[in-house]
């Protein structure tokens, strides 16, 4: 039954476009050469940057020599063609380059769901998608839910039902719930919980969130 369709959090594994290193600039090259000068220093420390697990010797890569790729994508209906570092994640592209800071980074490792956006209508963790994978895709963020200054029925339901406590998980909850409602305009509480299981809320405002989503059917749907 279509209404029971499980919203796959990770979506399909995107086809990875061949990365194009041709965009590397002269400046990148020069800075790369500059970094080589310090590359000879032996690194033997075991300090762990950011508590990463590796204690391997430090990489000697150049900071600005990251390979770049040109991509084009639609974000909230607007087309963008731009060059992205190959190591940028989608959430970095959205927040840092496009100034769409509504999408939040809670864990940066696919645990919490605060960074959920829609990619071609499916909810994905944007912390765990490379920006280059978004080439040719349509992305919707929380900023794209309201139309012409009017809140979507789901957003209005969150306002009326106290959906956000601290509000940090709210954008992710809204995006996953939007995808659910697009597939199933009148989900019951159990279906909402199933769909939103990948969106954590440490304020534990879960019941209010589910009540908000369930109430949307009475408001005439998500659209």
């Amino acid at each position: 039954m279509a209404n029971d369709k499980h919203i796959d959090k990770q979506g399909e594994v995107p086809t990875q476009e061949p990365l194009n290193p041709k965009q590397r600039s002269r400046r990148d090259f020069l800075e790369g050469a500059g970094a080589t000068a310090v590359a000879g220093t032996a690194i033997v420390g075991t300090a762990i940057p950011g508590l990463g697990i590796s204690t391997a010797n430090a990489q000697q890569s150049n900071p600005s020599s990251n390979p770049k790729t040109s991509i084009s994508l639609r974000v909230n209906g607007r087309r963008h063609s731009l060059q992205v570092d190959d190591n940028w994640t989608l959430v970095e592209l959205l927040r840092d380059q496009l100034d769409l800071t509504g999408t939040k980074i809670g864990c940066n490792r696919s645990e919490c769901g605060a960074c959920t956006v829609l990619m071609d209508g499916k909810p994905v963790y944007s912390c765990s998608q490379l920006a280059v994978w978004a080439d040719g895709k349509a992305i919707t963020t929380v900023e794209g839910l309201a139309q012409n200054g009017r809140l979507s029925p789901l957003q209005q339901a969150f306002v009326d039902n106290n959906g956000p406590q601290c509000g940090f998980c709210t954008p992710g909850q809204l995006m996953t719930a939007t995808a659910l409602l697009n597939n199933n305009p009148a989900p019951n509480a159990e279906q909402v919980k199933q769909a939103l299981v990948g969106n954590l809320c440490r304020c534990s405002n879960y019941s209010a969130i589910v009540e908000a989503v369930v109430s949307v059917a009475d408001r005439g749907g998500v659209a």
Partner: protein
Amino acid sequence: MSEASNQLPEPFNIDGPLNTIGNTTARVDAVERVTGEAKYSRDIKLPGMLYARVLRSPHPHARIRRIDISAASSLPGVRAIITHETAPIVWGAGSVDGGRQYDDPTKEGTQQRRFIFNNPVRCVGDSVAAVAAVDRTVAEQALKLIKVDYEELPFVLEPEAALEPGASLVWPEGNLCPDFRHNYEPMVSNLGDIDAGLAEADQIFEDRYETSFVHNAQMEPRCALAHWQGQKLTLYTPTQGISNCRHDTARDLGLEDHQVRVVCNFMGGGFGNKNQNQDADLVAATLSKAANAPVMLEYSRKEDWLGVHGRWPTVQYYKVGVKQDGMVTGIQMRGYSGMGPYRKNSGGISGMDAYACENRQRTIYPVYTNRTTSGNFRAPAEPHGFFAVESMMDDIAYKLGIDPVDFTLKNMNRPTEARPYTNFSLDECIALGRDQFDWATRRRVTPGSDEGPIKRGAGFSFMMFRAGVGTSSAIVRVDSNKMYTLFVGVTDIGPGAKTTMGMIAAEELGIPMSQLEVVAGDTDRCPYSVGESGSRTTIQTGYAVMQAAKDLNQQIAAKGLPTGNDVLIASATPVPTTDGKIRQCFGAHFVEVEVDTRTGTTKILKYTTVHESGRIINPQTAKDQIRGATLQGIGQALHENLLYDPASGQPLTTGYYRARHLTHLDVPEIEVTFIEVDDGYGPFGAKTAGEAGIILAPAAVANAVSNAIGKRMTSLPISRDKILQVLL
């Protein structure tokens, strides 16, 4: 939600019916929260802003022989690097001894200062150095180029082991934490005569309880954006108290308060771990000064887990004397709280004060270990303490063949002539909850008596918790267009403080919310507020709002509304008292569980809560405070734990999945009923709500599991392996 009763224990006149208070009101900033417009600290960008990262210790205990930053310094794009050698800045709020709230002589006397970078490093995750660079990638690469020569030292993880002779020392003075007067003594409280109380008993019961380290795990990881303009520092930082953060930061950096501006308009939760200022604030400020540019410091989720703090793990030994009729004659507790390497907060273990027994002795050892730091988490001293003492009493009740609710009604604290309360509604909370839950049907008179592998049982807990009044400030203004502006130094950390303050002002001013703007979250725009900790904002700042609004009303009555460009302004900093009476909030929880004894899985079937938090200002947000706090308590009861590998001292469960936080699918319906009371104190009689729910949940759930399986669960979390183990 229902209003079960409207008891008015003391005469208190309200001028007519309330218009705003008591009506569910959408948050004043709800639209920003659902559209992504809300700017959290990490969303703010300043021109020329640098990004910072912190290098952290991979060892549980090590002395830094040498730090070589030469390679990192010469990496293009690196703008500043600071270490314990170059930035010996004391983080006053980072430890009780020498801590924030004490005078300079006290601070000077301490031998155990906590710096933003410490040597030796005393836990995995202790800060070693910090880098500011043009972007995150460069900052992270620079960390890898910092060469640290560590001399690894022996470490100790468990608080009891840390006090044994020959234990490796976290600090040279010993592993018992000093208090703020530098005394290396346990916290002792003696009431009555414990020896006489125990001698008087017909039976003595003894048991050992333990509780785990539970991380606050707020969704927004710690960050700080520091920006100097001349001698003035602006901090955009997630904080539970902009005024406290400003004062702490100014003192730690040798500045005057007015030289620091703290801005926090939205923040993604804290539950106690964003109280005061944080090391991130000081690190960002120091890097920013060194680099002469704004600096954004961001912690990763794992850094937040290890570099911030959570609830202290405890071990608690109880000895309780009881008469044959169930009257408790003496309660003795010896407890150990694992504080990590810095005693950031008290290490308290509460709970036994909820009993009327006159002979009570409590001895708590706050102990240093080489785990991560322990600090405040929503009701800092309560959930673990109430879990243990109410499990103890529940166990005794069943062993004596007494209903635990009756046992409680016989033994709980009540007002006396010597200890009057502003009002006391615990009896009603318990009676109503017992009724609503159908306690008599759901509990197993003989624990574990269900046939078959799937067993049901019910548990009960009760609490009383501070709801005292205190000082705070507010300013309210009206212009010639009858537009009102309320200036309050609150931050909405989740419970809805901006909205609550606005509702109190609107009520007192007699205006609709649409005529009022609430300005909050900025120390340069707002007066002092007490801070979003200790469930104090509604009571204290709310009362100041009420008084400022009364003043403005009087001004308007005397002078009329302002005209032209004129405005009328009123400010208030009241210092209310409770006339010598104890003011508390009350609650009772009842829960039914189903335990699959083949797998050790616990499922919650029914959860009934009854709370008295005075008058409820905003019913929906108040209800969600109780529901959310209760769920956090269920997580503490069943899942959450920061485990360490005893051989390596490495933390194993840093993160949401590993610590097994509740998800949408784990959430039962939490029924919430408020008994509304106006005791004549606080704003319109409002009391504490934010911390109340979490206090009862671990005890109620643990008692229910024990009732289902017939074995006492003495260790939190009650994970599947522990249930299977006691059933072997």
